[in-house]
């Protein structure tokens, strides 16, 4: 066979590490291997439910069970009308679960791929892409529940719902950056994953997941200071039939940009050390 491709050259000089160039190459290579990330993400989901009859439908079912139970309980606790509260809680919980799962997965994006990282050269960004795709797959199993609940309670989906698409894009970009950033610091410092776990537990209560933002009265304008709330509200508000307001969107974009910048800076500087960390 004639040589169709130029021979690949891998050159590294410790005196001149060209870190930025290698990080860019890693990012390009990782995105180019989206097929691999997709195959691995799909494998993660199907393996988890291997041999079960319902398979990945359990994702949908367990969310549905939780929604039913919490919906009744909280409607009683807060003395609000079920028909008003449950649709809102549905959107809230599904978006929260997605966010929470992404953050939890991000902490193990690299340590979980230890076997691959130490055995074969592969762009590290593939592992981050795998986390994003795995969670996108989970989201696809859960999102239809929103439609079902809306139908049961007769809540109309408005044109504003289309705004949820850019919000999901913001979330995906943020998740990708988080999977790189958290993946790296969690590989180096093994105390970070439990810390993140505790933070997310607190975040569940302070981020207006089970209570409505209007319930905090004059504190409401300050809620977007919380990145979890900002990103979640950007997805939730359009689905509930409003824009969410400029502040929420600015905050969501700003927090994502900060995450991306931190991840990039960290990735450029420490990319070469990852194989020694995991």
């Amino acid at each position: 066979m004639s040589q169709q491709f130029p021979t690949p050259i891998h050159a590294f000089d410790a005196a001149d590490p060209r870190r930025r160039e290698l990080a860019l190459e890693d990012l390009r290579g990782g995105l180019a291997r989206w097929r691999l990330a997709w195959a691995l993400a799909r494998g993660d989901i199907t393996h988890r439910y291997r041999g079960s009859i319902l398979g990945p439908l359990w994702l949908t079912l367990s969310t549905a069970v939780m929604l039913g139970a919490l919906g009744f309980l909280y409607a009683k606790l807060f003395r609000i009308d079920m028909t008003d509260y449950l649709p809102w809680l549905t959107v809230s919980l599904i978006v929260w679960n997605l966010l929470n799962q992404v953050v939890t997965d991000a902490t193990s994006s690299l340590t979980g791929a230890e076997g691959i990282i130490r055995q074969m050269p592969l762009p590290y960004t593939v592992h981050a892409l795998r986390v994003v795709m795995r969670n996108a797959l989970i989201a696809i199993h859960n999102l239809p529940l929103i439609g079902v609940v809306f139908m049961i309670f007769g809540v109309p989906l408005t044109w504003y719902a289309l705004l949820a698409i850019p919000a999901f894009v913001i979330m995906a970009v943020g998740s990708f950056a988080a999977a790189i950033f958290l993946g790296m610091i969690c590989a180096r410092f093994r105390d970070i994953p439990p810390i993140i776990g505790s933070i997310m537990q607190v975040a569940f209560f302070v981020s207006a997941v089970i209570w409505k933002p209007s319930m905090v009265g004059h504190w409401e304008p300050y809620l977007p200071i919380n990145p979890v709330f900002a990103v979640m509200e950007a997805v939730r508000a359009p689905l509930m039939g409003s824009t969410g307001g400029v502040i929420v969107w600015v905050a969501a974009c700003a927090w994502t940009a900060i995450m991306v910048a931190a991840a990039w800076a960290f990735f450029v500087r420490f990319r070469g050390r990852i194989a020694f960390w995991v």
Partner: protein
Amino acid sequence: MATIDADGLAIEFPLYHHNARSLKQRILASSGLRLKQDADNRVVVAALRDLTFSIGKGDRVALVGPNGAGKTTLLRTIAGVYEPVAGKLRVEGEIGSLIDPAAGMDTLLTGRENVVLRALFRGMTETQGRALADDVASFAGLGDFLDVPIRGYSAGMNVRLAFAMATAMTPDILLMDEWFLAGDAEFMTRAEERLSHLVVGADILMIATHDMSVVRKWCTRAIRLEGGRITADGPVEDVLSAAGL
């Protein structure tokens, strides 16, 4: 044309997840030869120290040396897993690595699906992967087992599959650790034949092994590593007789 050039290459493994302080006192007090403190006061294992060599077209290199000499680490570094802490490394050519047969394999997938997965790892598409599966199937000689999940494979079958996958992609440089000797006699003959095809021309074979008969039969050059340094480099017989093997 395939080449590997190293100049002053060094790899150090920091010991991160241990009680560094007590470890330091115990080990550094006994002035460990390979354990030392780096500039940031971390305890590190000097896995490879100041390696300089040049491997060119047609070289079939055996890496020999005692356990822990740095043979596998050198293979992984050349493959691009580890970034050197000092020195230069330049590798020209497509690399096929047979360092760990299980790497990147999914035990729940069938042999055929694993071939496709491996193709994806190499940046190919599913279609190219499926085409590759046929080539792998004919060489690995797994028969019906190709469509069985590989967790049902014997160690030897795993090796056949891994070897067939790595060599089917016709790399310019083949890096091999000695596990592949787990194949049976008939497979070894076919493996040797396939390797000899592979090593014709500008290709490079680099193999880490303790089996001197393999070294004598397959290799043209030997590099002896001891404590992370090269202690001998030259034609196979010279290196082996100098080491008394």
